[in-house]
C-alpha cells in the first residue's frame, strides 16, 4: 500500500514545491503580451478546491506572500487577494477537484479573472500602474488567460480519482500532513 510506505507530510508539499519552482523558473520565460503566469494563484486554487477550510486559507496566504516576494510589486497585496480567493473557493470544506471538472473550471476562471483585475486595480490605485485600459487589457487579461490555460494540466492531474494515492496531489493535502499534526490556531 502506498500509504504505508510514503510519508504523507512530504507528499503534502509536492504541489507547493512544484508551483514555487515553476513560478520562479518558468513564469518569467513565458509571456502573452505583458501577461505572466501566476502559478501561485493555481496553487492557492488547487489547495482550496482540494482541502478547503483553514488549510486552503493558509496555503492561499503563503502562496500570495511567495508571489509578492518574487515580484517587484508591493508585499501583501497578492497575499490578501489569494487569502480571500482561497476562502471563497474552499468554503465547502471538501475535496471538489475530483468531482465536476467543468464546475471547477468555471470557479477557477471567475477567481482568476477577479484576482487579476483586483490586482490591476490595486496597482492603479497605488500608482504602480497608469492607464485603466492598458492595465486591464495589456496586463490583467493576458495574465488571467495564461494562468487559466496553465491551470488545465493541474486540474487534469489532481482531478483524477487516483490522485489521492500519489502524483502531485499526494495525500489529503492537509497542512499538517500526518495524523495529530494538523496546524491548529486556537481562538480563530
Amino acid at each position: 500500500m502506498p500509504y504505508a510506505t510514503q510519508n504523507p507530510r512530504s507528499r503534502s508539499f509536492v504541489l507547493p514545491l512544484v508551483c514555487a519552482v515553476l513560478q520562479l523558473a518558468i513564469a518569467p520565460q513565458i509571456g502573452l503580451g505583458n501577461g505572466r503566469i501566476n502559478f501561485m494563484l493555481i496553487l492557492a486554487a488547487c489547495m482550496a478546491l482540494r482541502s478547503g477550510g483553514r488549510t486552503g486559507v493558509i496555503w492561499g496566504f503563503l502562496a500570495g506572500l511567495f508571489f509578492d516576494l518574487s515580484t517587484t510589486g508591493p508585499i501583501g497585496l497578492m497575499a490578501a487577494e489569494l487569502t480571500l480567493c482561497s476562502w471563497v473557493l474552499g468554503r465547502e470544506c471538501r475535496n471538489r477537484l475530483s468531482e465536476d471538472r467543468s464546475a471547477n473550471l468555471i470557479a477557477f476562471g471567475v477567481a482568476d479573472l477577479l484576482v487579476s483585475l483586483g490586482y490591476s486595480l490595486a496597482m492603479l490605485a497605488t500608482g504602480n500602474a497608469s492607464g485603466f485600459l492598458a492595465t486591464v487589457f495589456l496586463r490583467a487579461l493576458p495574465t488571467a488567460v495564461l494562468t487559466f490555460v496553465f491551470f488545465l494540466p493541474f486540474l487534469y492531474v489532481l482531478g483524477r480519482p487516483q490522485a489521492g494515492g500519489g502524483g502531485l496531489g499526494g495525500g489529503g493535502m492537509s497542512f499538517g500532513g500526518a495524523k495529530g499534526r494538523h496546524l491548529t490556531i486556537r481562538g480563530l
Partner: protein
Amino acid sequence: MAVRQTLGSGGLGNTDEGTGGRLATVLVVISLVLFTLSAQEGGSGVLSTIRSGFSVVAMPFEAAGSLVAAPFRGIGNIFVNLTADQETLTELEDENAKLKAENAQLAEEATDAQSLRSLLELQDQYNLESTGANVIAGSTDSWSSTLTIDKGTSSGLTVGMPVCDANGVIGQIIECGPTSSVVRLMSDESSAISAMVQTSRARGTLRGSADGTVYLTTIAVSEDVSVGDMVVTSGLGGVFPKGLPLGTVSSVERPEGAVSYTITVEPITQTTPEQVLVITSITQEQQAAASDDASADTAASTDSATADSSADTQS
C-alpha cells in the same frame, strides 16, 4: 490513517473544522499591514531585506529556468526572418546596431569638440567604471518590464546604477540583493531617464509605457526634432553618463495647440541581452555640468515663454 487518507482524497470529508472565515480575516489584515509597511518603506527596510534574502534563494531557480528556455528564444527570430537567410540578417542587424552606437558616440564627441572641450576630457568621456553581469531572468510578474542579473551588493552594485548592453542604455537597477539585482528597463512605465536629441540638443525625459512604447516627453514644439534623430542620455541628475545612446526617434507628432511634441523613440536595444554592463560610478566629466543645467533651465523657460506667447497670439 489509511481510512482518513481515503476519505480525504475521495472527497467525502475534510479534517479542517469550519471554513476558516476568521482565519481568512486575520490573514487579510496581516496582508494589508504588510502592504502598508511595504508601501511606506520605499526600498529600504525590513521587508526589503526579506525580499533581498528571498532573491538569493530564488536566483538558482531563475537561472535554471533561463537556461532551459534559452534554446527556444530563437524561435521568434526564425519566423521574422523567413524571407531571408537568418544568419545574414542577424549579422546585419548586429552590425547595424553597432554602427549606430559608434555613430552616436562619434557625433557626441564632435559636438563636445565644438563646445571647446579639451581633448583629454573627450578621451575620458566614455571611460566608464563598470562591471559585467549575466541576465538570468525576465519579469516575474505582469506589472513591470524588468531583468534579473546575477550580481548584487556583494559585487559592489547598488540601487540606482545605470545598466547598458553593447548598444547603449537599457535601464537602471531598482532592487539589489546580495547575489542578484533587478533592472528596470527603459520601456517600463515607471521608468524615466533624462535624455536629449543629439542633433538639436533638445532635452526631455524618456518614459516607458504599459504597452512597451518609449516616449520622449517635454520637448517644446520650438525645438528641432525629426524622425531618425539619435536620442542620448543628457547626463542631468548625475545618474547616467552623458551621451550614451538610448534609441532613435521613430515618430514626431505635434498635436493641435500643444506646447510639446509627442515623440516616439525606438530603443536602441530591441531584444533581451544576455550580458550587460553595470556602470558603477561616473566621473564629474560624464555628468552634465552645472552650467548645462542652468542653460537647459534658461532654454526651457525661454521656450515655455515663447510657446505661451504664441499660444496667446493664436487664441
